[in-house]
């Protein structure tokens, strides 16, 4: 079987298109590359949607945590504390079993026990909490002069937030937010190891890498392939965030623009 044929059969296997049965023996390098790559579809799906939805919720959380009103501040603080203080792995398990018991009471919760929705919700809440804390930190370090200038122009309320506070917050938070995005994509690898079942063996990249490692008892091929894909993904994230960073800082003189410094680990 040629490699092109393998790609046709297994390229979209992770979302259920193509060959039904996974290869069972005589694994070729091409099969491993194709299947693990096809699993990356799930990693990207979880990452992108959690990031996009999480971004808006995180802004709300940050504003809530910075609010002088206790009614807004306390819930935001607790939310951030709970999701940042406990392991994502346990959150996945808890979420899954919570949805499972809700499902037995209300059929409405049926799709929530599937990974595509249930795990996405957990990831969304988790990244919103981490990002919320980053945004809150940025809100606290907005230069006083910026806000005073907005006041002097007679801006208040929404227009002051939309035109001055929010863009400055994003500018300050962007390097840390890039790290968070990278971590989120890494965290997506946990989904199928934490209760959420891989229906009809439609799993993510690590699921397939683990499948091959189990079958061949040779970790030295599938995991480096996985690493290759994730490094590629990380580079893509970094360049996309770099473009946005340049856009956010486009009004600054050339030399004052802060280059996006990369320290993707340890931050979280």
């Amino acid at each position, binding site marked *: 079987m040629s490699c092109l044929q393998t790609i046709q059969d297994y390229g979209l296997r992770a979302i259920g298109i193509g060959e039904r049965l996974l290869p069972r*023996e005589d694994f070729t390098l091409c099969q491993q590359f194709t299947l693990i790559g096809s699993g990356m579809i799930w990693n990207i799906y979880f990452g992108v949607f959690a990031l996009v939805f999480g971004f808006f919720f995180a802004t709300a959380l940050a504003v809530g945590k910075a609010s002088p009103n206790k009614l807004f501040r306390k819930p935001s603080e607790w939310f951030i*504390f*709970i999701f940042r*203080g*406990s*392991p*994502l*792995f*346990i*959150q996945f*398990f*808890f979420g899954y*079993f*919570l949805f*499972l*018991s809700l499902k037995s009471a209300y059929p409405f919760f049926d799709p929530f026990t599937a990974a595509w929705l249930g795990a996405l919700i957990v990831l969304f809440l988790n990244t919103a909490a981490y990002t919320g804390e980053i945004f809150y930190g940025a809100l606290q370090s907005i230069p006083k002069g910026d806000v005073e200038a907005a006041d002097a122009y007679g801006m208040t309320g929404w227009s002051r937030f939309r035109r001055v506070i929010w863009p400055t917050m994003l500018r300050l938070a962007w390097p840390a937010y890039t790290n968070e995005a*990278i971590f989120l994509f*890494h*965290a997506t*690898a*946990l989904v199928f*190891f934490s209760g959420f079942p891989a229906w009809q063996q439609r799993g993510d990249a*690590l699921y397939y*890498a*683990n499948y091959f*490692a189990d*079958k*061949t*008892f*040779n*970790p*030295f091929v599938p*995991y480096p392939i*996985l*690493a290759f894909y*994730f*490094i590629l993904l*990380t*580079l893509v994230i970094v360049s996309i965030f770099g473009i946005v960073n340049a856009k956010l800082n486009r009004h600054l003189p050339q030399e004052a623009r802060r280059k996006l410094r990369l*320290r*993707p*680990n*340890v*931050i*979280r």
Partner: protein
Amino acid sequence: MFSFCTDPSVLSDRPWMACYLTTGKHMSIYYSVFTVLLLLAITAPVALAFGFGGATAARSSFAPLRWFGKSYIAIVRGVPDIAFFLFFVIALDQGIEYLRHKALCRDWTEPVRQGNDFVVCQAAKMPLGDAPQWVHETYGFSLAVLTFAIVFGAFAANVLFGAMRAVPRAQLETAEAYGMSQRQTFWRVLVPQMWVFALPGLSNLWMVLIKATPLLFLLGVEDIVYWARELGGTKTSRFTDYPHGDWRMWYFLALLVFYLIFTRISEIVLDRLMKRLTHGQATAGGEAQRKAAA
């Protein structure tokens, strides 16, 4: 455990719960909390040592050593840590068995890797096939510790490397001016001063390490996640005196609370430590402390 536990089916809610939570199986989950603490207690210093070695190697003037240190730091970036955990446990296991095979069974001619099988001679098995259960468990746990130490050592190396560079250059120049050798400068000036710069990164790392401990479950150790799944599952009266429905949700809620309390306590302790360490340092934090006191 308690004297009134002989017939659980007649007990009312509260004593039933007391009996239920102290069954032999539940003792295992309490022991496994100690497994987690033990893992942290061993991994943290070992990872710090790995990190120190990695950071020193990355600063070395000897090029191959520097490349090794830098690639050790860089390799953990960009790849999910869970992939490393899954990889290293098998890789270390096979590596050890391969080395023992080479040393112990010299007259073995067949290749070790035969298709999808990894074959070593009986004497090279690790642990030996006839070893008692606790040896197997200890071996599995040590592999897990080593894996954690390798991964978190790379993170720690990154932090310490940054901290070593953050020590003001003037301090080192002063040491040299006093006629200290390179080695003396390193041990007497650089190392004592770098901790205050390293602490924020290291405390962050400690938090990440705490939150990575449930991954032990994936490495095949019977840890709290394993027991929470075991004990929480539906139990019928045929197999146990304490039948109950699917309680896994509550077990994981308990784990969630356990980790929340644990991280919170760590946070408070580390804050105190930071206050201590910044005392008298030529940093913004130290300056703020001095001003507050004055």
